[in-house]
Every structure is written in structure tokens, then in C-alpha cells.
């Protein structure tokens, strides 16, 4: 019995079929995959009953390490794409997944990742309906890369987008900042920090769908790479307005703050995998916060600032002085000075 992935597993021959059956068919088990066709056949009527537009999104996942506190590359690959659909107002429905595997990857590792994907997909209410596996020689990729693409339907009444952002709108984050980035940095760079650091990696549709019925939600983004800072810059670019946030209002886990003080870093620049930034009209601010607070993934949601005329992104510090928040030109690295 071979216990690691070999080039034969990507050959399209018997080994490939066995791998697909044993790992993916078993984990993702559904009628689309059982049809054994080269494509999933999705009924258009199912989509049109749910809305008037289809959302379609893709992302690739190459994280190191592939297992981390709070998640793994498989969970991340499902959450990432599901969240990209959900922040556009879509009901996520179907996913594809493409695997690029490094020769020598333990099969049990792949099994664990596939099981995690299946579990997360179930939680998120999506079905993995089509997939692909390639194997490359040892060293050509780092253990495993996953691409997922997803489709969802956007209900007719929802029309979210940065173009709707207006001056005076409020900026809300759905929870604490930087949990994922802080966790990964510590492990990846082997910084040896011990503590309750855990990625916030989570599928967010169940949180976001409560906002579907609230009038005045302008735009939502998930704050992944580049953190909340990067999202605020996107909002500025997309709307033509400035974003002003207040430092003392930013929700932070105490451990993340500890890590940031020790290493001289700013949690606003850390990646999140289970947090969204929402711009809402002032009239519905309270309603949105109440709705978020009722959900386990949104209990720490907080209003952190507002949309202003002057076209830049600023942070108002502890003593009322505003400073410009530049986009960092690189990912955060720990400092000693």
C-alpha cells in the first residue's frame, strides 16, 4: 500500500481513479460527482429561483504551514471562495476545486485536508461539484496548492457595491482584527510565541445573510491579505470618498495586541479569514450591529469609523490626532527597533 502521493496519481490511470475514489468521492460525496462526467450540470432554474444574477469567484490557496491553529489549507480554500461570494450579496451554492499536489505528500495529509474541506463546505451550505488533481515532481510546489471557484445566486433585492458608498456612512468590522495574520506569522517565521493565537478562518454566509433584509447596507468586503487597512483603501478607490477610523474603537484580541507590541506591528495590516468590513448608512448602523451581535461570528462586531469627503484613509489616535494610514508596501515582518 503506497502511503504517499506519486506521479502516477496524476497520470489519469488506475492510480488516479483510486485516489479520486478513495479521497475525494468519499469526502465530498454528492450526485454531481457520482455522475462521473467531465462537468457538473447545474439547473439554471435553481439559480433563477434564488435571484437575478449569478456571482462567480475564484481564488488559489498556497499557505505555509498547511495546518495551523484554527484551520488548514482545505478549510481556508472553502471559506475564502464562499466568503468572496457572500460579501457580494450572493447565496453561495457550488464550488469547484483543483489540487496541485507535490510528489511525496502523505496520502493521510491529503485525506485530512479533503475531510476538512467537506466539513467546511457542509457548514457553509455549498456543494463541491467538480474538481481536478495534478501531481508535480518533488520541489515543484510546496506540498499542496488548492484552487477553488464558486458560484452563487444574488437575490434580486440586493445591490451591494462600493459605488453606493456615501459621505457620512458608518464603517463596521464584524469582529477582532488580525487573528489569522498573527497566528500564521508566529508559526511561519517560528517566532516561538506561546498563547491563545488562533486563525479566525470561517465561512461567513450565515452571518452575512442576516444583512440581506436590511436597507442601507452599501458594501461589504472580507478583510483578507492586507487586512482592514487594504479594504479601506479599496473602499476609497471604489467610492471616491475618504475613510476615517478611530484607533480606540478597533476590536482586538488581547493576545494579538500582545504580539503586535512585542514585534512592533500593526494589526490593521494583518490578514483575517473570517472578518468583514461593512459600510452602512447611519440610519441602519444600529440594526446591522444588533444583527451581527446575535451571531457567534459577529459578537465582537464594532463600528470603527465613517466615510468622509477628504479622499484618504486616516486613523484618529488616542488623543484625537489623525494620521494617514498608508498601504504597507510589503507584508508585515517582525521588528526589533
Amino acid at each position, binding site marked *: 500500500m503506497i502511503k504517499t502521493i506519486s506521479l502516477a496519481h496524476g497520470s489519469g490511470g488506475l492510480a488516479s481513479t483510486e485516489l479520486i475514489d478513495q479521497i475525494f468521492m468519499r469526502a465530498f460525496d454528492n450526485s454531481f460527482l457520482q455522475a462521473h462526467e467531465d462537468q457538473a450540470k447545474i439547473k439554471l432554474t435553481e439559480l433563477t429561483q434564488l435571484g437575478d444574477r449569478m456571482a462567480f469567484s475564484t481564488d488559489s490557496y498556497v499557505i505555509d504551514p498547511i495546518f495551523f491553529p484554527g484551520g488548514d489549507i482545505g478549510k481556508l480554500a472553502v471559506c475564502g471562495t464562499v466568503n468572496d461570494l457572500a460579501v457580494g450579496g450572493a447565496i453561495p451554492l457550488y464550488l469547484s476545486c483543483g489540487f496541485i499536489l507535490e510528489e511525496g505528500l502523505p496520502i493521510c495529509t491529503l485525506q485530512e485536508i479533503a475531510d476538512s474541506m467537506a466539513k467546511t463546505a457542509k457548514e457553509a451550505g455549498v456543494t463541491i461539484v467538480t474538481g481536478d488533481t495534478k501531481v508535480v515532481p518533488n520541489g515543484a510546489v510546496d506540498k499542496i496548492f488548492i484552487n477553488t471557484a464558486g458560484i452563487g445566486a444574488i437575490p434580486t433585492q440586493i445591490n451591494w457595491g462600493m459605488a453606493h458608498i456615501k459621505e457620512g456612512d458608518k464603517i463596521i468590522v464584524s469582529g477582532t482584527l488580525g487573528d489569522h495574520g498573527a497566528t500564521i506569522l508566529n508559526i511561519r517565521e*517560528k517566532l516561538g510565541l506561546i498563547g491563545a493565537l488562533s486563525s479566525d478562518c470561517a465561512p461567513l454566509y450565515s452571518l452575512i445573510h442576516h444583512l440581506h433584509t436590511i436597507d442601507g447596507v452599501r458594501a461589504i468586503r472580507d478583510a483578507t491579505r492586507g487586512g482592514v487597512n487594504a479594504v479601506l483603501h479599496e473602499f476609497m478607490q471604489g467610492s471616491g470618498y475618504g475613510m476615517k477610523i478611530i484607533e480606540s474603537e478597533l476590536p482586538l484580541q488581547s493576545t494579538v*495586541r500582545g504580539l503586535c507590541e512585542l514585534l512592533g506591528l500593526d494589526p490593521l495590516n494583518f490578514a483575517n479569514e473570517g472578518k468583514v468590513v461593512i459600510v452602512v448608512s447611519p440610519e441602519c448602523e444600529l440594526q446591522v450591529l444588533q444583527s451581527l451581535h446575535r451571531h457567534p461570528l459577529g459578537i465582537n462586531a464594532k463600528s470603527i469609523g465613517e466615510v468622509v469627503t477628504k479622499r484618504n484613509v486616516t486613523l484618529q489616535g*488616542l488623543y484625537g490626532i*489623525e*494620521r494617514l494610514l*498608508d498601504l504597507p508596501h510589503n507584508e508585515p515582518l*517582525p*521588528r*526589533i*527597533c
Partner: protein
Amino acid sequence: MQFIDEFRAPNAVKSLLNQINALVKKTVFTKDSPLNIMEVCGGHTHAIFKFGLDQLLPPEINFIHGPGCPVCVLPMGRIDTCIDIAKQPNVMFCTFGDAMRVPGQQGSLLTIRGEGHDIRIIYSPLDALKLAKLNPEKQIVLFGLGFETTMPGIALTILQAKQLQLSNFSLLCQHICIIPTLKALLALPDIKIDAFLGPGHLSMIIGIKPYEFISQDYAKPVVISGFEPVDILQSVIMILMQLIKQQYLVENQYRRIVADKGNTAAQAVINQVFTLQGNDEWRGLGKILDSGVRLNEKYREYDAELRFNTKRHCQQDDPNARCGDVLTGRCKPINCPLFGQTCTPTSAYGALMVSSEGACAAYYQYRQSDLI
């Protein structure tokens, strides 16, 4: 956070500012001829901008952002030496994150990591020692960067390496001492510094006595200061009081951390392992007499430059860059012709834009809104 948040309390900051406003009126300083306080340490620069203290303080008080950041004064050629060594086969090159983005002639450590060379970011120098124990077949090189604050940790690491008889560990020594730097600064003609905010964490190692020449020979106040807003403002008050009384002393505001005599055990390991030798060149400051830090004879076997037989690079900064003038308070970052144009954090020409602690980078990051 304990011993941090208490020293950021807005109410305390408010009343300190009130007191400063009252005190400054009793001095000769005006908006056009302000009290120039040099903060030597990049940590102070960072705090001043982060909390907006420069904007909260009255216009009669002006901060000059001094040379106290090891990355700012790191000459380009030294990064080239790092890269020469890191590119040697079988080398695992360990550095603090700060040095990763500093550009040399052939790129930065970050860019060559991208090319597949083994560059490790460490939090503690002891992490590099652990890597040496775990990877006996590799040569582990530690980039020792920093002032006296960082030197004791590096020195202890060298002592442990010797004790463990590790033959695959070496140090690329790029340390700098504060006193020769300040002496060189004060010897310059036409500098406009009225007082010094002394570096808190550096002083917890060397103590407060070494600064006495500033108060005695140059009649300028020195206050060793902590890094929180309350610390910095209280230090400003102590400076003002000295100026009003016309009594110039070295005072210690950061008593909770800094013992007047410093950390004698740390001083002893520094002296055991390192020696001051040679007139080294520093970015923005030029050549400084006896400012080079080398490993002592007894520990020379751990000198990475000897082990890898590298040559010293000499790399000139852009002649238009006014780093030296900014460092000495002759001009503000915005007065430099390169600032924000050819010199930005992504393409730093000058020393002070390189590190996020540098005066120009801090200006660029925090004060850009004033410039547009």
C-alpha cells in the same frame, strides 16, 4: 496592557500638556526660534508621530529626529556584505526583520530570499543558535545589528556558541555605540540642538553617566526617557525645568526601567566579547572616530567576515540626499529634494527612509497629509 496603558492615559497627557504650555512661556523660546529637542532614539520618533505629540505640543517646542536607529545608519555596502555571505552555498543567514528590506547594491535580503537563498527572520539571537544546533551540516550566520541594547544578547549568544563548541556559527558584526555617535554629532559646526531626550532602552544597559559630557561640556539638558506618551511629555517638562533653572544635568525619567548605573552584568558581557576599533562609516553621519565594533581577539573565530573572507563594500549615497542635515536638525525631511519624490519607503535613497523608525519614513507615513 500593564505598564503600558497607564502611561498612555489621555487625562495624564492632557495635564502634562497644560503644564508644558505654562512652562514654555517662562523660557526664551518662540514659534520662530523654538526649543530644539533631539530625540536620539527611533522608538521616540515613532511614538511622537504615532500619538501626534508633535502636533499636541506648543509650537515653541520642536523635535529633531536623531541618529538612534541602527537600520537608519546602516551603510548600503554592509547589506551587500550580508548578501555576499547569504549567497554562499550551505549558508543559513539569520537576521532581525528590520534588515530584510534595506536595499543594497544587489537588492535586499528579502529579494534574495525570493531567489531561493536561505534567509531566516529571528526574534532572538538565541534562535539562530538553536538553528546551528539543529543543522550541523549548515553554516549559520547571524547578522548582529543594533546599539548597546542589542549587544548584550548577541554577546551572550557568542559565549554560548563557544561553550557549546559550535563550529558552524558565526556573527556578521554591525553594532554601533551611542556615545561616539553623539560625540561626532555634537562636534559638528552649526548644529541647533538645545536638549536631548535620551534613549531609554539603550540607557538601561549603559546607565546615565556616559551622557554627562553633554551637560558638562556642552551645557545641554539630557533626560533619559521612556517611550510612552506620558514618559515623553514628562521628560519635556524636566528639560524645560532645567532650562528655566539654567542647571544642565543628566536626569532619569525612566526610573522604572533604567537604573542609574545601567545593567552591569550586560556591560560586562559586552566588554568581554566586543571591542571598539576603527573609524567606521555610517549612513548619513560619515566616518566616526572609534565607532567600529569588532569581536574581541578571543572570539574572532566567530567573525563571519573572516570565515567567509568577504571584501568590504563601499557604496556612496546619492549626493543630493540630505540625510546628514536631517539627522543633525539642519533641515526637516520635507526640505530634502529627494523626499517623497525619488525617495519613498518603497525606493529609499537615503538612510532615514529605509527603516520605519527613520525620521523621513515616519514623516512620510504619518505626516504626508500635511504635505499634499
